[in-house]
């Protein structure tokens, strides 16, 4: 009797265990999805609520009367320090800083990667190693000398301004930040392009050389047309990093009208005068997060590849 029932019980029990396993797995996955989504959800619903509803309602409840006012106020009216003209100006500051910094550092990275893989010379690995290590240093160890140098360049800019009528961008905080981000970004961009070009067939380059193509012709005609994926990865990586930077921004453009978005947001949130308008704060945070989130939604695959390339070499 037992011999007959046991296998049958086992079989049905096995089925149950399997289903149970699936339920547990899906349950856990859903739970963690909630954990990751919660802060964004709260931020989003809060940004559409009135102050009244925030103070009396539930944090997780959907807005009863959704209002777009907090967003408009954050964009055009809220106070950053003593100026109350919204965060729009700082948003554009960030754009003005990010675009040139990304383009320049990516271009330099492409050229460096090309040289380091296709025009190898003695000591190339050492050069690359030194540039690579620069990616990992805590920026605190260069923060102060850079501040000193930027300070003297600014003073030189004033002298130039008086003498010639233009400072050539010296002393302009946005130009300074572009410079800083290029300097401390080329390590990563070089790494990306080097690893990508390493896998690119050297025979093609050799053949072009035999045909008399010059250094730049090979770069323009052979390397660049085949570099689209790594360009996307690098641009996204640099864009996210530079847009999100706070340390350099607060050290070199921490006050005044030229603050980038991250610093301005931190000031909005930590302004202690008057009533704290949480809905406006959350709208400002959403505005600051939107560009990188948008890039993530549109090109998530490349975003992940960039992170991986920065983490796992080769």
């Amino acid at each position: 009797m037992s011999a007959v029932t046991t296998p049958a019980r086992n079989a049905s029990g096995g089925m149950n265990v399997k289903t149970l396993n699936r339920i547990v797995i899906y349950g856990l996955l859903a739970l963690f999805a909630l954990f990751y989504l919660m802060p964004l959800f709260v931020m989003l619903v809060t940004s559409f609520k009135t102050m009244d509803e925030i103070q009396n309602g539930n944090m997780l409840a959907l807005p009863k009367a959704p209002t777009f006012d907090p967003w408009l106020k954050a964009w055009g009216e809220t106070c950053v320090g003593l100026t109350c003209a919204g965060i729009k100006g700082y948003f554009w500051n960030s754009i003005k800083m990010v675009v040139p910094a990304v383009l320049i550092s990516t271009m330099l990275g492409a050229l460096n990667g090309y040289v380091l893989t296709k025009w190898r010379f003695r000591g190339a690995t050492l050069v690359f190693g030194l540039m690579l290590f620069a990616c990992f240093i805590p920026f605190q160890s260069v923060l102060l000398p850079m501040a000193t140098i930027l300070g003297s360049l600014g003073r030189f800019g004033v002298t130039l301004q008086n003498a010639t009528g233009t400072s050539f961008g010296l002393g302009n905080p946005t130009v300074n930040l572009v410079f800083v981000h290029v300097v401390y970004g080329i390590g990563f961009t070089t790494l990306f392009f080097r690893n990508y070009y390493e896998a690119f067939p050297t025979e093609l380059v050799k053949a072009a050389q035999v045909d008399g193509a010059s250094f730049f012709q090979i770069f323009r005609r052979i390397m660049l047309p085949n570099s689209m994926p790594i360009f996307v990865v690098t641009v996204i990586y640099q864009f996210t990093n530079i847009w999100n930077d706070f340390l350099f921004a607060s050290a070199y453009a921490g006050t005044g009208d030229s603050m980038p978005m991250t610093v301005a947001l931190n000031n909005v949130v930590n302004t202690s005068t008057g009533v704290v308008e949480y809905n406006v704060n959350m709208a400002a945070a959403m505005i600051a997060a939107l560009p990188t989130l948008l890039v993530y939604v549109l090109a998530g695959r490349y975003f992940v590849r960039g992170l991986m390339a920065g983490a796992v070499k080769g």
Partner: protein
Amino acid sequence: MSTVATSQIKLTPEHARPRASVRSRLQDALPKIVLAPSFAITIVFVYGFILWTIYLSFTNSKTFPSYVLTGSRAYQRLWGWTFDTDPPSSWYTSITNMGIFGFLYIAICLALGLFLAILLDQKIRGEGVLRPIYLYPMALSFIVTGVAWKWFLDPGLGLEQTLHQWGWTSFHFDWIKNKDFVIYTVVIAGVWQASGFIMAMFLAGLRGIDGEIMKAAQIDGATTFQLYRRIVIPLLRPIFLSAFIVLAHLAIKSYDLVVALTSGGPGGSAWLPSNFMYEYTFKRNEMAVGSASAVIMLMTIVAIIVPYLYSELREKPR
């Protein structure tokens, strides 16, 4: 005779046209010329600046840099402070926080990342939806993360208030305002931001494992748990190493998160060494002490990164 003539013919063009020779030499040097600016920038603005910071840490610079060497006074001050000084030394608080934050952040991110990756690797329907959800916080800045969690953890507005409204009135969660616990809120927000990325690293590693090995182990009667413990996790060792490097590096650099989430915490109780460095250098006019703390941060990173980079670059000698 004829051989001499030909050799002369061969030789003459190069000697007769020195311009071509300069041009071709320039062509040969061009790659190095292209690389040179980047390399020079790195040498000056990274290595030169590091030396500069090290130099400053041995002076008595206060508000402005001073270049008179005064020995290791700044380091003695850093390490001479203790918990017994009143108020407790910010440096001791910072490095204790670094220990707590670093350990928990790395350990939880690794554990959670691996756990989620294994769950997601069970042929899950909807993986394409879940993966981006776990990973998106990595696209946000620490400032945005800090603002979001500051709100969520605020006792009067966030989680505590919500649970009170739902009837759980005894629930109490004010870590963010408590000087002994505020550093753990930084861990929560940090883990929230980075664990999804660690999950993606592990998932990529899991997908790279040869299915044959798994099948063979299953045929040998290994349970799922044994399979992961004895075979899969040992195979993921390189990923553990990379993830550790990424996390250690992120942990030591964390500065923005503390600022945005806690504004430094009550009495600077949430400071990490990076916050200490910034405050002492730029706000408290103790430039030498700030520089000394930066040097210590750098040394910690060097101890972790240099052996790693060395082995990575040596593996592919070409």
